[in-house]
C-alpha cells in the first residue's frame, strides 16, 4: 500500500477526523480543553449536564441573575510535593471577582499543605482554612500575599472560605480534595464489599 492512499483513507473516516481534531485542540486552545474529549467526559454529555453548563454563563454575571459567582469558577489545581514532603499550591484572589483562583486544590495524599495566597483585589479578604489542631485564619490585606501551612490527615473533601462580609456566600468558597486510601490496619477483616458507584 502507498503512503498517499493511506493518508487519504485516514482523512475520510469521521472517527479519525475527530481524533485529529482532539490532537490539534490543545495546540489551538490550550491543554485544559484537550481533556474535554476524553471518553469519561464525553460520557457525561447528557442533556442534564448540558443544560447546567449552558446556564452557568448566564448566572455568572453579578447583578444579572445573581450577586454570587459560581464556586467552581476559579478552577482546579494539583498541589505538588516538594523535597521536604510538604505539598504546595498557590491561590489568587483576582480583582473584582470574589472568587478563589483556583477554587479546588487537590492533595495527592494526606499530609502538610502550604498555600500561598495572592490578593490582587482592592478589597480585604481572609482565608479561613481547615487544619488539625485548629482552623487557621490568614489575613489578606489589599495587594498583599500570605502563606498558610495546614495539615489534613484524612482523605476526603474539606472547605475553606473568606469569612469577610459574606464573601464566601458570594463565591469565595473553595474546596480541598485529599486523595488516598484507608491504611490496611484500619480496614475491616472481611471479603471485599461492593461500593456504591465503583467500577
Amino acid at each position, binding site marked *: 500500500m502507498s503512503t498517499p492512499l493511506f493518508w487519504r483513507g485516514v482523512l475520510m473516516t469521521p472517527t479519525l477526523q475527530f481524533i485529529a481534531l482532539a490532537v490539534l485542540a490543545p495546540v489551538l486552545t490550550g491543554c485544559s480543553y484537550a481533556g474535554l474529549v476524553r471518553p469519561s467526559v464525553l460520557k457525561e454529555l447528557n442533556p442534564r449536564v448540558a443544560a447546567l453548563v449552558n446556564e452557568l454563563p448566564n448566572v455568572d454575571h453579578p447583578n444579572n441573575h445573581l450577586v454570587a459567582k459560581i464556586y467552581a469558577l476559579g478552577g482546579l489545581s494539583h498541589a505538588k510535593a516538594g523535597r521536604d514532603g510538604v505539598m504546595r499550591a498557590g491561590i489568587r484572589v483576582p480583582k473584582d471577582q470574589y472568587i478563589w483562583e483556583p477554587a479546588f486544590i487537590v492533595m495527592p495524599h494526606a499530609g502538610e499543605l502550604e498555600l500561598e495566597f495572592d490578593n490582587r483585589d482592592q478589597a480585604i479578604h481572609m482565608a479561613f482554612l481547615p487544619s488539625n*489542631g485548629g482552623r487557621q485564619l490568614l489575613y489578606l490585606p489589599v495587594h498583599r500575599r500570605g502563606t498558610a501551612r495546614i495539615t489534613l*490527615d484524612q482523605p*476526603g*473533601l474539606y*472547605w475553606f472560605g473568606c469569612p469577610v462580609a459574606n464573601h464566601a456566600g458570594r463565591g469565595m468558597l473553595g474546596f480541598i480534595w485529599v486523595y488516598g486510601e484507608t491504611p490496611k*490496619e*484500619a*480496614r475491616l*477483616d472481611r471479603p471485599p464489599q461492593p461500593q456504591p458507584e465503583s467500577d
Partner: protein
Amino acid sequence: MDAGLEGRAPSVVQGATYERLAKARAEPQNWLTYYGAYDGQRYSALDQIHSGNVKDLAVAWVFQHPPLGLVSTPVTYAFEATPIVVDGVLFMTGPDGYVWALDAANGKLLWQYHHAIPLDVPLCCGNVNRGVAVAEGKVFFVNVTGRLIALDATTGQPVWDKLFVDVRAGESATLAPLAVKDKVLVGSSGGEYGVRGHLDAFEINTGRHLWRRYTVPKPGEPGSKTWAGDAWARGGGTAWITGTYDADLDLVFWGTGNPGPDFDGSMRPGDNLYTNSVLALNPDDGSLQWHYQWTPHDVWDYDGVNENILFDQEGRMYLAHFDKNGYLFILDRMTGGFVSAIPFAAPLGEISIATPEKSVYSGRPRPQGRTSARVRPARRNGRMRLTAPEPGCPIPRWWSSAASSNPRPPNSARACRIGAARWRTAASPNRASS
C-alpha cells in the same frame, strides 16, 4: 475565636492514675470517667444539691460553640458529651472534632483542639461525640473519622493519633474512650451502613495497637452459625457506647448495637450474635469470657448498646441493663447467667429471653419453640407498621419506612402485662444516635 485563650491548663491529669480512676467514687468533687466510676452507676455522693433546693439552681456560666461554616450532617450537630472534671478543670468534646479544657469555676476556655473533619465522612446517624477519657496526663477522644487521639492534658497538643475505622466502609466513631489500667478502649459506629462492629485497645502511653475484637464472628468462629451466608460481613453490632469495668473480675462489659440491615431480618436468618448483646471481655487481650444477647435477631433497631450497670447485693455480683426492647435485665456478672428480666416499658414485640432453662444460643438448652422477634410488615400509605405479636400489647408505630418522615416514637408507652411486673412509663425513646 481564640480570644482569651490561656493555651494551658493546670497539670491536674498527671495525677489521674489507674489507681485513682478505679476509686473515682471516693472523689465526689471530680467526675473522672464517663459514668463517674467504672461501675456505670452515674452516682454522685455530693449532697449540697438536693430535692429541697434544686429549684434554686441558676446558670453560673455558659460555654457556647456554634457550628462554623459547613459541617457534615448539620441537622444532627449536637452536644452529647459527658464533661469530665479533674480538680477544677473540665474536659469536654463537641461535634465535628472539637475538644476543650475549661476552668470549671467560670467556664473560661483554657485550651481548644480541633481535628479537621472532611465534609464527606459517612455518618449513619449523627455528627456527635460523647466525650473524653483522662489518664496519665493525657486526654483521649475519638473523632468521627475514627481516629483515637491522645492530647497532652496541659497544652491540648496531640501526643499520638491512631486510626481504627474505615470511613470508606461506612464506619465512624462517636463514643467516649475508656481508660483501663495501661490501655484505652474504643468501639466503632456505623451500624446502619453495613459494617462489622469492633472494639480496639491501645497502649495509653505509646498508642500501640494491642487488640481488636469483632462483635460479629466470621465463619468458623464461635457464634458464626447464628448467621447465614455472608451476612456476617455486614452484620453491624457496633460498639458505640462506653463500656463498664470490674477491677476485681478484671472484666470489661461492653454493649453492642443492632444487626444490619436493621429493620429487615430476611437477609440474616438466625440469632445474629453478638449483636444487641453485652460482651464480657478480658481487657488485656480482648478475649470473650461470656456474652448475653438482649434481643436475638433484632428487627426493630433496638440497638442494645446501653450501659451495663454493675452492682452488688447480698454478696452476689450483678449486672443490670435497661434495653430498648423494654426489659430490665439482671445478670450474674461473673458468669453471664440470667437472673431476671422485668418489663419496664411496652415491648414492641416478642423477645426470646435466654434463661437458665432456655437459651437462644449454644451451651445451654434451646428454648422450646423458637420465639425470636418477628415482624409482620403491613404497608399502608408507604409506611411499614411493625406489629407486636404479643396479644394485649399496644402496637406502636416506630420508625416509618418512608425516608422523608421523621422517626416516630410510640404514640404512648402504655403499660403492658408481661410476666409479673406491670409498669407505666412516660419515657420517650432514646433518640441518641450511633
